[in-house]
């Protein structure tokens, strides 16, 4: 008698603990670009408050890496990328619901240096001086900020020279971390990232880009919860969501 009760309790506990791993009807998984980490966490809290029956799980990383996960079948409901190109690839591979994609914020590319840096470059050309020995740049193959950077540097005909000093980062937040620790002399990140660590990094200058830095968001085609996914996207576009994003320094889409 007691043994079967114990057994039932154990089974119930096991079921509860795995509940988090299972995608129950009222759960949402959002894969978002690394630069959205702080903003989206706050948006998630707000969304859950407005929709008490839904729990939101976040998965942050470089947009390219997130795309690969979705392509290989990760159970994601919403995908927010830091550049159009990644979302383009997602559409080509039919990973997101056609027509449901929408731009939700914009950002700017900046060069940051450690807060106590002696040499502060003022232009891209300044990066090509001996004082700047290492530059953190997102790996272009998978990190949007790296792609923006490469495009900008290629246009300025500085890419080969700077690439030689490049320290590849797996995400924009890692690039930021390298600068914050002083392991590199400068790094390319988004303005919103620089705002996260004002005590450790400072913006050297803003980098104008030909392609505007505009972030798209879309529900994932194979997601198990299309209704909730669409609700989340709408929430991000709503005044509430936009206010949070603005608070973190993002611009209008």
């Amino acid at each position, binding site marked *: 008698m007691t043994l079967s009760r114990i057994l039932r309790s154990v089974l119930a506990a096991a079921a509860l603990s795995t509940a988090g791993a299972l995608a129950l009807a009222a759960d949402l998984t959002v894969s978002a670009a690394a630069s959205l980490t702080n903003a989206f966490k706050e948006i998630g809290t707000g969304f859950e408050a407005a929709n008490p029956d839904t729990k939101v799980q976040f998965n942050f990383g470089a947009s*390219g890496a997130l795309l*690969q996960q979705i*392509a290989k079948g990760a159970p994601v409901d919403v995908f927010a990328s830091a550049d159009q190109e990644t979302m383009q690839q997602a559409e080509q591979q039919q990973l997101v619901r056609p027509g449901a994609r929408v731009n939700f914020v914009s950002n700017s590319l900046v060069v940051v240096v450690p807060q106590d840096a002696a040499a502060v470059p003022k232009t891209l050309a300044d990066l090509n001086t001996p004082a700047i020995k290492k530059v953190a740049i997102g*790996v272009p*193959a998978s990190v949007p900020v790296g792609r923006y950077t490469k495009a900008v540097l290629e246009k300025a005909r500085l890419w080969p020279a700077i690439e030689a000093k*490049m320290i*590849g*980062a*797996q995400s924009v937040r890692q690039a930021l971390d390298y600068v914050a620790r*002083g392991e590199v002399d400068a790094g390319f990140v988004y303005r919103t990232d620089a705002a996260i660590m004002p005590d450790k990094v400072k913006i050297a200058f803003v980098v104008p880009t030909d392609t505007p830095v505009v972030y798209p968001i879309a529900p994932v085609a194979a997601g198990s919860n299309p209704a909730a996914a669409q609700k989340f996207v709408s929430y991000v576009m709503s005044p509430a969501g936009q206010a949070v994003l603005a608070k973190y320094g993002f611009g209008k889409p």
Partner: protein
Amino acid sequence: MEPAWVALGLSLKVALWATAIDLLLGVAAGYALARGRFPGRELVDSLLLLPMVLPPTVLGYYLLIVIGRRGWLGAWLERSFGINLIFTWQGAVIAAAIVAFPFVCKSARAAFENVDMQYEQAARVLGLSSVAVFFRITLPLAWRGILAGVLLAFARALGEFGATLMVAGSIPGKTQTLSIAVYEAVQAGQDDLANGLVLLTSVTCVAVLLLAGRLAPSRIPGRS
């Protein structure tokens, strides 16, 4: 497949250096733990085995704090010698060496403890110094156990990823080892490249195991 060969060469270089360092330090530590009688010996043993249980990223983080430019050791190195270990293959060697150290240390300790002290005593009475006893008796009788640990350490160093990535980054030709190259290829959706790298890594590991089998002597001299 150029990048693949470069990554392989780098992986082997880093793993060989890390294993060599671990061989020296691990054997020394193993011997001290096996034969030494000092207070807190088991505590030291646990501390030395810590890298085996700590997640590589945690190790990588600790390393970063210590040998990074702002770390106490890293700052001193930069001030005194102008050396910066972050983003260098030497940094990768250190990360791999720390991660693989417990394998050598643990095997060495067990191997030395298995050497009957009577042999060492007999050698001492016959007139040998402690150093001579170590090289003529203790080490030859323990080396097979140590070798097992060394092989494990090499395999671990070869596959090291987390700590290496944090400390050495992923710089093609300099610190992008095979494991990291695979990771990046997958992130970038370059499946063909990823497959090729994985195949290359597997073949290398099999080759290492076969080579290790060759190294073992054909004759097993008596019981220890």
